[in-house]
């Protein structure tokens, strides 16, 4: 059975009964499939669709007329998309629509993948986190989305499904530009897969905001460091930056320069400089080009320090 309700605005339950909120001009259908197969069928019915996970981006965009659709497909009634857990091989599999709060309140997730919690626990406030999902954060494709850089350094892969099957891709290949992802209209993100982390490694994510909460990153950085067996050399590193380009960026040269180095301020400072080199930010109400480039370097260093501490704790 498919729940269908013709609504002249948004589904009322999502916004509460106050009819005086700014509403979209056009009517659309709301559908709530109970399985992936049903969802794929909706995606293939020839109408313009938008997917609804937590709705904390998409409802705002609809209300402000920045997006439109014929039908809004609610993903929260599809069990696979709401679950998360560790697979036998240690991969953390997160259903695309699972709320962030459930994720970061999980003790195993915090113990095994703290960098994901760094990101998930700062996206909006508690109310937002109780609805917002990783899938929505990634697919919305904001260059400032907090989970992106964290998942990139964790080496996350995305399971993407459609009526014709599934495919996997590295998370960094999801982003095509501000607000644009590489999914086909027939596809949806099913799962975010975070592989078991290498031994003696640690990862860390942070952002810069002028306030202490309720803000969108002016710039952000994630880093993962892998140490050698004796802990005195870096074996490998990954660095990713947010809000300093049209998409979140991998800072490859900065990461490569760390391999074989002694972990510490000197190597981190150089990595910071190199990371700033890949930044191509804009000036807007949240920050300037020069400020963001500088922050890319500062935050890279701070992310590396955090990653090093976690790597040492992991040994």
């Amino acid at each position, binding site marked *: 059975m498919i729940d269908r309700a013709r609504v002249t605005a948004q589904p009322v339950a999502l916004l509460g009964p106050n*009819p005086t909120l700014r*509403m979209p001009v056009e009517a659309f259908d709301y559908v709530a499939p109970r399985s992936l197969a049903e969802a794929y069928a909706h995606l293939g019915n020839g109408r313009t669709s938008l997917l609804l996970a937590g709705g904390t981006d998409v409802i705002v965009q609809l209300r402000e007329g920045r997006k439109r659709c014929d039908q809004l497909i609610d993903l929260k009634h599809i069990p696979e998309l709401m679950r998360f857990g560790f697979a036998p091989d240690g991969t953390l599999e997160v259903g695309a629509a699972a709320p962030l709060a459930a994720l970061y309140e999980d003790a195993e997730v915090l113990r095994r993948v703290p960098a994901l919690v760094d990101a998930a626990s700062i996206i909006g406030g508690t109310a937002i986190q109780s609805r917002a999902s990783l899938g929505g954060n990634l697919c919305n494709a904001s260059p400032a989305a907090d989970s992106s850089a964290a998942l990139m350094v964790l080496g996350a892969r995305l399971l993407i499904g459609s009526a014709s099957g599934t495919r996997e891709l590295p998370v960094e290949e999801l982003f095509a530009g501000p607000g644009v992802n590489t999914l086909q209209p027939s596809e949806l993100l099913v799962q975010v897969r975070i592989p078991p982390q290498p031994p003696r490694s640690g990862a860390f994510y942070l952002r810069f905001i002028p306030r*202490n909460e*309720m803000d969108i990153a002016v710039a952000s950085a994630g880093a993962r460091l892998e140490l050698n067996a004796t802990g005195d050399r870096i074996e490998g590193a990954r660095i990713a930056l947010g809000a300093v380009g049209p998409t979140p960026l991998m800072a490859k040269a900065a990461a490569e320069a760390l391999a074989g180095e002694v972990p510490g301020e000197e190597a981190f400072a150089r990595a910071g400089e190199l990371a700033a080199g890949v930044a191509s930010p804009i000036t807007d109400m949240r920050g300037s080009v020069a*400020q963001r480039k500088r922050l890319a370097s500062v935050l890279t260093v701070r992310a590396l320090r955090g990653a090093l501490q976690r790597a040492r704790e992991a040994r």
Partner: protein
Amino acid sequence: MAATEHPSYKVIGTRPVRPDGVEKVTGKAQYGADVRLPGMIHGKILRSPHAHARVLSIDTSEAEKVPGVMAVVTRADFPVAEDVVQDLGEGAVSVKELSDNVLASDKVLYRGHAVAAVAATSPHIAEEAAGRIRVEYAVLPPVLAVRDAMREDAPLLDEQRVTKEMGGQGSGRPSNVASHLRFAGGDVEAAFAAADEVVEREFTTKMVHQGYIEPQNSTASWNADGTLTIWTSTQGAFVVRSQVAEVLRLPVSQIRVIPMEIGGGFGGKIPIYLDPVAALLSKKSGRPVKIVMSRTDVFEATGPTSGSYIRMKMARKDDRITAVQATLAYEAGAYPGSAVGAGAMTMLSPYNIENFVIDAYDVCVNKPKTSAYRAPGAPAAAFATEQMIDELAKNAKLDPLELRLKNSAHEGTRMVNGAVFPRIGAEETVRAALTSPHYRSPIEGPNRGRGVASGFWFNAGLQSSVVASANSDGTVNLIEGSTDIGGTRASLAMQLAETLGLPFEAVRPTVADTDSISYNDVTGGSRVTFASGLAVYEAGQELRKEMVRRAAKLLGVDEAELVYEDGGVQSTRDATKRLRFSEIAAKAGQTGGPIAGKGAVQARGVGAAFGTHVVDVEVDPETGKVQILRYTAVQDVGTAVHPSYVEGQIQGGVAQGVGWALNEEYYYDESGRLLNASYLDYRMPTALDLPLIETVLVEVPNPGHPYGVRGVGEVPIVPPLAAVANAIAEATGHRFRDLPISPRRIMEETQGLA
């Protein structure tokens, strides 16, 4: 912590629970958006996408065809506005400009300027229909910043406008400068020549928002008999009544304004925006019409406070500030009326400075018409003065508070406008700051700094009226006409309870509508606890006299032998002859009927407010982020009627001032589009951004009020801008004279980023 000089009171100075508290915390209080009436429909306003344009034509025919649409209005539906200036309770207002701001006529002057409106059976239909109104614009270049607008070649908002010069004649050339004021005294040139040190600096601030949570709203019902009822969120129901009456050319008696609970105002809810539009939509449709602004509407189209430019030259000789020369230019927004005059009059008031010349310019720009914001005009001016004093103190190796103390204003000091201070608490606040545990504690650690600053605000008196009636159970109904924003139901009830010698709980305050009480000016100028308090005192005195008369009848003695004392009437001859207030009230029917007292005042004896603040900050040298480590606000509060609410006012003012100092600004692109029209990107401080703000209440009673009350609500926003800037200067070694001192600005300045 408090330093006290007043007599001991029974109710004043206690901390009872506010009468409106339970309804508010249980969600039962009725706000404007809660109004629902039989047959009510919804209005939507079409707003200009351009910051400056001529309106060539408006075609509403497509909108009218949308099913569900019941009325459309444009300016053509309004009575022709008279080009007259009226005092409508908010200072002088041109009726034409007021009408033009409510709905544009020939020109739109800012993005978001209202152009037309639709009422329909649902807000969605109204919005869809509004989108189908075709407006033809001839787009003009906008002018957005105050100094650009003052240039001779600037685009003109109003080709007819010439600068009003105080007393004299201006050039007569069209200009965006609406007016120029000058205050002068002594001989500045001589003082500059004789000075030990003269510093000259420039300061700028950006437009900022008051930050209330509740968007503007109005529901209007035009009745078949030609009367009009308006439910709205406002700081002054009577001012809404008089403004709507002018715009719609109705007698005030035909309009009834019902003030709903208010979700914050801070000056922003004094002007009218939606009320006349909702009224005309209601007249046309025959239905009650409700309009509620979106947050974007609030940011783009209602009044923030001015952005400003200030140049200031200050001289020191020994430990005296001997002369100040200053030029202030404030952005008025689309129509004249910034608070630059108040800025000029307040900027030197904490001090006794003999020689001064202050020029003040009110300048129109293509941004929303500014409105009041807590101590309007004073914070930006103090941002300049208080940094100048700090710089002079540091250069001369003087303690910045000691220098302030040496130059402090006191009873008898003349303000720049010639007014002479009665007993004030300026010196007392500086002294209390000097001896505060905060100031006496060391500040240690790298990248940390301490700043101080003082501030002044006049406070207002104006008109208030109340009625107090005794109930048969010995309680008293207090009917008043002042919107309760800051706990004034409580502070007025407390004053009546004190006057009558009754417990606080015996007084039941109600804020009435404009048909139910005589005139009251706005809740603004920190005036209600003071001025409506005077009316309450008067009503209380009347009740006391009446109680004595009634007791005389009940006791069968001569009135002359009776006194009102301790919540009852007492014989001075026979100690056993005593009647409690409740006993007399219960028998009112036998002694002459209902017992009531009234108070109606044009309040005199306003007590000015002074504050001195101390703040410690830490600046992240890499990111430029500022943490407020500790904040202490000292204020002369006259008498703290309800100390918790006084502290709350001070803490709220500081929070707003810190936001203004660090991150808040209206961020426009060159076309005049506001890019941060949401609370996500308009960065007000959150609870995590501030420590608990410590308060020191100094009580120097106001001689103009029976309980020594001074307004307390506004002055706490005056010092923080400069106090924070002074602290950042200590922490970083860099002076910041442009607000906001955001991380971006700090990085640019301290790291040489262009």
